[in-house]
């Protein structure tokens, strides 16, 4: 590793200014050089860890508790990561014990619930560990300003996007919001997505949701994502729907 590669190919590294693709690499024979093999391995390692690092529910609970936010921990019907990865259907349902906890949470909530907020591991626990609480710090004050009543924040393990349908249904919420780790790529392993569904109940389709994605350092900023989310929710409550037919609040205002 101390010796530099024998020969630099002429000027090809300049090609890299045009694309994030791995071009203009040096060669060992016709193969990749040690340095580029190690770089690739490092990026893949980050992506693998993002998928497989255990979801630190205690950490998220404590961080939210320190901000005086109540939480309910739930688990999907996928008992472990291997099951979760092979059975997306199980990741969309809560297990029986969790169902009971959500029903109790509903009984304790005074009056109605506007928003069911779910924080879920999805395919990148790292995305949630680094982004979820920081995002909620931006968003929850906006929710308070709009007088949207929130149920205790649900922390869901081994969860897919559609688990928010059942959770929102059990909490009798007008709208569900799920913060979830996106499938890691080699260039970004900590990207969080947010999906919202009006009148959540089991069996909703993806066409009935709206999505904000690529929320991470170097991607969409937390504050910008929170602004976008608030506008989507305003539009959803006004039009009583989410999904492909939803127009964001800003365009509604322009029309009126």
């Amino acid at each position: 590793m101390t010796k530099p590669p024998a020969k630099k190919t002429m000027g090809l590294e300049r090609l890299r200014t045009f694309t994030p693709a791995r071009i203009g690499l040096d060669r060992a024979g016709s193969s990749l050089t040690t340095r580029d093999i190690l770089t690739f391995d490092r990026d893949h390692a980050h992506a693998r860890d993002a998928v497989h690092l255990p979801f630190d529910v205690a950490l998220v609970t404590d961080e939210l508790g320190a901000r005086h936010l109540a939480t309910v921990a739930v688990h999907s019907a996928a008992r472990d990561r291997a099951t979760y990865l092979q059975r997306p259907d199980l990741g969309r349902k809560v297990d029986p014990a969790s169902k009971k906890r959500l029903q109790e949470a509903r009984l304790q909530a005074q009056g109605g619930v506007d928003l069911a907020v779910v924080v879920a591991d999805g395919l990148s626990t790292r995305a949630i560990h680094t982004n979820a609480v920081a995002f909620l710090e931006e968003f929850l004050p906006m929710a308070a300003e709009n007088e949207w009543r929130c149920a205790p924040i649900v922390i869901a393990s081994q969860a897919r996007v559609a688990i928010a349908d059942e959770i929102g249904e059990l909490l009798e919420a007008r709208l569900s919001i799920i913060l979830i780790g996106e499938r890691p790529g080699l260039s970004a392993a900590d990207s969080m997505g947010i999906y919202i569904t009006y009148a959540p109940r089991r069996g909703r389709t993806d066409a009935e949701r709206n999505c904000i994605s690529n929320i991470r350092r170097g991607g969409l900023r937390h504050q910008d994502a929170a602004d976008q989310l608030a506008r989507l929710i305003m539009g959803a409550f006004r039009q009583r729907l989410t999904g492909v037919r939803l127009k964001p609040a800003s365009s509604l205002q322009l029309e009126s």
Partner: protein
Amino acid sequence: MPQYRYTLGGHTYHFRDLKTVMAKASPLKSGDGLAGVSATSEAERSAAKFVLADLPLANFLNEALVPYETDAVTRLIIDTHDTDAFAPISSMTVGEFRDWLLAYGTDAERLRSVASGITPEMAAAVSKLMRNQDLVLVASKIETITRFRTTVGLQGHLSTRLQPNHPTDDPKGIAATILDGLLHGIGDAVIGINPVADDIQAATQLLQLLDDLRQRHEMPVQTCVLTHITNTLAMIDNDGPVDLVFQSIAGTEAANKSFGVTLDLLRDAHQGALSLERGRVGSNVMYFETGQGSALSAEAHHDVDQQTLEARAYAVARQYDPLLVNTVVGFIGPEYLYDGKQIIRAGLEDHFCGKLLGLPMGCDICYTNHAEADQNDMDNLLTLLGAAGVNFIMGVPGADDVMLNYQSTSFNDANYLRQLMGLRCAPEFETWLEKIGLMDGAHRLLPPDNATPLLGYLKEMV
């Protein structure tokens, strides 16, 4: 209806129908578990294989796995079945068919002569009785050659698709990646872009970029923008420089419908591309992509196992004389193919079944980050497919597709395989590489320093 049962270790296993036998005889795949059709124990899988081995091949002509009345792909398979070609194997059971395929006397010519008599269900059935080495050996005997501006699939050759994707379709970024690929001797199957924007205008601009590059450097290659077939049809109508028609296809009518494609649409596009007469050494104008699991993911699987449905997609492909059929094996994710072992098995099955049916099979040897797989698994499948005589593989810079966010094979991987097995590029492309100073007399890649015209183009870009 015939009875399907087998007694093994004192227990008699019953199977409801032919598709249940097929599904339960399938090697373990997470997607068949997700569909709820897989064997519930290894003993049951073994019993299903015994049942399958004793079934006459002809049974597949009498018992449709997906109903004839409601599925256009089944109708296509049955209505176009070539009984003359089938005659030499018509009295065999599935087990006897496997033994026949492996016999010394069953050579390339005999395999070619029976291809149109083999239905995809027969191919899938026999593959379930074959070990990985059988899939490699039989496929290696089959030569499927196709032509447009290059000749793809000759024995002893390996072609590559240069895949210069960019996260925002930036023309300079795409051109830079193409240049780098060419300097690695990549692109003789096709230079094909997966566009981000799926509209006609964006696709036309990219197609023009590809055609300009091709003409400027007088490259014997074909180019393609992998956009929906309806966009390509529109580009053909607008006299765009369409070499190949791309489309993803699947093994049931309903799954194809979910892709927005019908057999009529495929026929129209095929005719349209032929009418342009842009090929130089041949007129294979279609480029199809497939992959196990696509039918279930569209909820259009009819309780048939994913590998059999994949083989049925090849029956669709072979109606239109494709230049390239690419099984994108690990792209779909671990809920269909869980780990390296399943991806490798699926890649070998797809390549074998496609070749047996007479198709020019290539493979996108690939995985996503939530699958239990890594680049070493891809090396294994790459080497096995090289031994099996795969027509083409992908060339993605550094194996990392920065637009589709998955890992495939790199430019270097293709050259590893060429070096290891003495495989050569398509002859027309090889001549061009020699002419511009990128290949020596021993067919070895040279450093880029001599490729003056291409490097001149680089200087212009920078």
